[in-house]
C-alpha cells in the first residue's frame, strides 16, 4: 500500500463506517506527506503540540502550497468574510470574545447551565413523538432534530425555516472534506453559493432583530457594544452562519455515535440506565472514542516546523487527524476499548488551544441528557443494522440513519 493510497482510503466512502484500522496504519508515520502537498499528523502528542503552535495558522490566506490558490480565490469571491474558525489572533480572539459575551462566562455565566431544563424538555418531547418502536431512525427522529431545535432557540432562528437552511448547512459541512489532488473548483462554487444564500437568509433575520431585539444570541450580537466594539454586519453574518452550521452538523453525530456505541456495548448501556450520572464520564470517553469531528483539515504553517523527525515546510497544508490521535497507544492505554471509567481522558475531541470548540459545554450537556434519557426510556433497544449507513463526510463523520428497535418506551 502506498502512502498516498492510505489517505485516499481514509477519505473513501466505503471505509467511512470504520476508519480506525486505517488511522492505526497512519500513526506508523506520525507526520505523513501524502505527495499531494498536505502533511497529515495522526499521533496525539504531535497533534496537541501543533494545536498550540503559534507558527500554525488557521487563515487560508497563509496557505501558499497545495490547495492554496483555489482557497484564496474562494475567499475573495465569497460574499461573507471568513468566520473566526478560519482566522488567527488577534481577529479570531476579538470575534470569539465578542460572540462569547452572549453565550458564556464571564458575561453570561449561567446561560448554558440554565438550559438544562429546556434541553430535558426537548428530549422528552422528541422521545414522546417517536412513532413505531419496530423501526426508529434515531437520526431523523431524535439526534438531528434535538441539537437543531437547541441552536435555533439559542440563536433565535425560526425552527420552521429548518428546511431552508438544512440544505445549506449540509453543503457547507461537506465542503470541509479535503479532496487531495482533485479539482475543487466546482465544489467550491457550490459551497460559496450555499454560504451566500445562508448569509442572505441570516441578514434578513438580523435586520429584524435589530429593530425588535429578543432574548436570543442574534439579537444580543446585533446590538452588542462592548470593550471590543461591535461586530460589523458581515462579521455578524459569518459568525451566525458558523454557529448555525456547527450546531447542525456536529452534535447530531456525537449523539448518534453515542447511541451506536452504547448499543454495541450493552453492559455500559445497562449501567447508564441505572445511573444517569455515568453519562458524564461516558460522553468524554465518547469524544475520545468516536469524535464527531475526525480531523482538522484547514491549518497551514507560517514557518518550517520540525516535528517527529519531519520538517513541514512553510505554507504547507496541515491535516490534524484528532480521531487518530485519540486512539494513539502511546497516549491512551488500550485505546480501542470504549471505557467510560477511564481516568486519563484528555481527549482531542473538541480540539485544543485557541480554536478549541466554542460550543463544547452545550454539546456536552446535550449529549449527556440525550444519552441518559434514551437509555432510561427505550426498553430493550437494539440495532437493526450494524454498521449503519454513514453520511459521506469524512471530517464530520457519523451515521446518516441509525435504524433501531425497542420493545416499549417508558414514560
Amino acid at each position: 500500500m502506498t502512502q498516498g493510497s492510505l489517505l485516499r482510503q481514509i477519505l473513501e466512502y466505503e471505509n467511512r463506517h470504520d476508519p480506525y484500522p486505517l488511522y492505526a496504519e497512519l500513526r506508523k508515520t506520525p507526520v505523513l506527506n501524502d505527495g499531494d502537498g498536505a502533511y497529515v499528523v495522526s499521533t496525539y502528542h504531535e497533534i496537541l503540540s501543533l494545536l498550540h503552535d503559534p507558527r500554525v495558522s488557521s487563515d487560508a490566506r497563509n496557505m501558499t502550497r497545495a490547495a492554496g490558490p483555489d482557497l484564496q480565490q474562494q475567499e475573495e469571491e465569497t460574499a461573507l468574510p471568513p468566520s473566526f474558525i478560519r482566522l488567527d489572533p488577534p481577529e479570531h480572539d476579538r470575534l470569539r470574545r465578542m460572540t462569547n459575551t452572549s453565550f458564556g462566562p464571564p458575561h453570561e455565566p449561567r446561560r448554558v447551565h440554565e438550559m438544562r431544563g429546556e434541553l430535558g424538555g426537548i428530549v422528552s418531547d422528541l422521545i414522546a413523538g417517536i412513532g413505531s418502536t419496530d423501526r426508529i431512525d434515531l437520526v431523523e427522529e431524535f439526534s438531528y432534530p434535538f441539537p437543531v431545535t437547541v441552536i435555533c432557540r439559542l440563536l433565535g432562528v425560526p425552527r420552521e425555516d429548518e428546511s431552508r437552511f438544512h440544505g445549506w448547512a449540509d453543503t457547507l459541512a461537506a465542503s470541509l472534506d479535503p479532496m487531495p489532488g482533485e479539482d475543487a473548483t466546482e465544489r467550491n462554487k457550490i459551497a460559496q453559493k450555499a454560504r451566500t444564500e445562508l448569509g442572505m437568509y441570516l441578514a434578513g433575520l438580523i435586520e429584524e432583530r435589530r429593530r425588535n431585539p429578543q432574548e436570543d444570541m442574534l439579537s444580543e450580537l446585533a446590538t452588542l457594544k462592548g470593550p471590543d466594539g461591535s461586530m460589523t454586519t458581515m462579521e455578524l453574518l459569518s459568525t451566525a452562519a458558523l454557529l448555525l452550521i456547527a450546531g447542525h452538523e456536529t452534535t447530531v453525530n456525537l449523539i448518534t455515535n453515542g447511541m451506536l456505541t452504547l448499543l454495541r456495548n450493552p453492559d455500559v448501556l445497562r449501567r447508564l440506565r441505572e445511573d444517569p450520572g455515568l453519562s458524564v464520564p461516558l460522553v468524554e470517553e465518547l469524544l475520545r472514542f468516536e469524535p464527531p469531528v475526525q480531523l482538522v483539515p484547514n491549518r497551514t504553517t507560517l514557518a518550517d516546523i520540525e516535528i517527529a523527525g519531519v520538517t513541514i515546510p512553510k505554507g504547507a497544508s496541515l491535516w490534524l487527524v484528532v480521531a487518530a490521535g485519540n486512539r494513539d497507544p502511546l497516549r491512551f492505554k488500550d485505546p480501542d476499548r470504549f471505557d467510560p471509567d477511564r481516568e486519563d481522558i484528555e481527549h482531542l475531541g473538541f480540539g485544543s488551544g485557541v480554536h478549541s470548540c466554542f460550543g463544547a459545554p452545550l454539546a456536552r450537556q446535550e449529549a449527556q441528557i440525550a444519552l441518559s434519557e434514551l437509555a432510561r426510556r427505550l426498553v430493550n433497544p437494539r440495532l437493526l443494522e450494524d454498521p449503519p449507513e454513514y453520511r459521506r463526510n469524512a471530517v464530520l463523520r457519523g451515521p446518516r440513519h441509525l435504524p433501531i428497535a425497542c420493545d416499549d418506551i417508558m414514560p
Partner: protein
Amino acid sequence: MPADGHLERLKREGRIVVVGASLAGLRAAETLREEGFAGTLTMVGDEPYEPYDRPPLSKGVLLSRTTADHTALPRRRNLDADWRLGIAATGLDMAAKRVRLADGEEIEYDRLLIATGVRARPWPHEREAELDGVFVLRTRDDATALQKRLADGPRRVFVIGAGFTGSEIASACREREISVTVAERGAAPLVGALGGVVGEVAAQLQRENGVDLRTGVMVTGLEGDSAGRVRSAHLSDGSSVETDVVVVSLGATRNTEWLAGSGLGAGPRGIACDAGCRAFDIRGIVTDDIFVAGDVARSPHPLFGYQFLSLEHWGNAVSQAETAAHNMLCESVDRRPHMWVPAFWSSQFGVNIKSVGVPSMGTEILISQGSLAERRFVGVYGYQDRVIGAVTFDQARWLPFYEHLIETTAPFPPPFPTVDRRPEGARPVPADFPDPSVPTHGPTVTLSGYSPADRRMTFTPGRH
C-alpha cells in the same frame, strides 16, 4: 546485597516523618502511600489545620467569594497518618534519627521529609509591626484577619511591596472599592519576577484600576495613634499616607531555624538538596535518609546551568514532593531527578498572568504575540542566545509551546514568525531586570521525550 530486604522492610513497617503539613507535605504523603508505604506515617505541622491551599487566600478569600477555613486541600487518597498539628518541630538529631517537637515529644524516623516552607517576612520594626491594622498575608489566620478587616470597610489600605501577593491584595481591594496605596521600592510592580518591560504593563493596570501606586520609594516608618492603631505610613520621598490598614508584602523567610545546629545544610536560603531531593549536610555530603521538598528546598536544575534554584511555586511543591516521596522508597538507580520547569500564575485586575521557565535570568524580552498596550501578549525571555522563560497576559493557551522552547534550549530570539506578531515583536528589547543574576556558563541539558513521565536527558555542549 541486603538493601532489597531493607527497602521491603521500610515499606512494610518503617517509620516516615513528614515535617510540614502543607501542600508539599500532603502530596508527598499521598505519594508514599500510593507507592506502597504501609508503615507508620507521621505528619507534623506548626499550624493547627489540615493541609490547606494558599493561593486562594490572596484572591477568592479577600474578595469574600470563600473563607479561609474553606481552603483545606482535597485528598487524592486516604493517608492513614498520625497527625501532629499545631505543634512545631523544634530540633533534629541526625545521628539518633529523631525529630523533636515543641511539646517535648521526640519522634523516631527511618526516613524524614522536610517540607517546612516559608513564612511571611514581617515588618522589620517590631513595635510598628505590632500596631493594630498591620498585617502580613501567608497563613489561614492571616487571611481570616485581613478579610475581616476589609469587610469592615477601611478608608484606605496601604500595601508595602508590589510583588505578586502585594499586587493581588491591591487588586482585591479595588474590586471591593476600597482605596489602596501601593509602595514599591523598584521601578514598577512585579519587576523582580518579570522585569521592567512587563512591570510597566502591571503599573498601568494598577493605575487604571485606581490604585495609588508609588514606585521607587521605601516605607520609612509606620505611625500609630494613642490606641495603638496604625494611622499613617511615612515614605522615603518625604510624603506620608493616612491609612487604617497596612499589609506588609515583602516576600518570605525560609523556615529552617529549627534545624540550627543539627548538622544539616540548612540556612536562610533554604535547605540544599541534590536533584533527587536528598538533603546535604553541612559538610556538603548528601544524606541517605533526609529528603526536602517545596519552598524550603534549594536544588540544582539541569536546565538552568545546574544552579541551585529555590522556587516558591505551587507546582514545584507538588512535583518535588512527588519526586522526593518516590525517591524515599527506592534504590538509587530507580530514583528520579526533580526536573520540573518552573511555572507560576497570578491573577490580578481581571488579568491572568502565567509564566514558565526563569524569566528573571533573562536579559532580553521579545513580545512574540499580541501587544503590551492591549494587555494580551506573550513575552519570551532570552539569556545567552537561548530561550530561558516566557510570560503570558491572558494568552495561557500558547504557553506549552514556549515551555517546549525552554526545555529544548531553543535559540533566542526565536527565528520564526508567529500568528499575532505585531510591530513591537520585530526585535527583542532589554528585559530590564533590576538586578540580573549572572549564572555560570557550562554544558546545557535538554529534555526530550513523549511525556513528562519518560523524559530523557541529553547533554549538549554549551554555546559559550
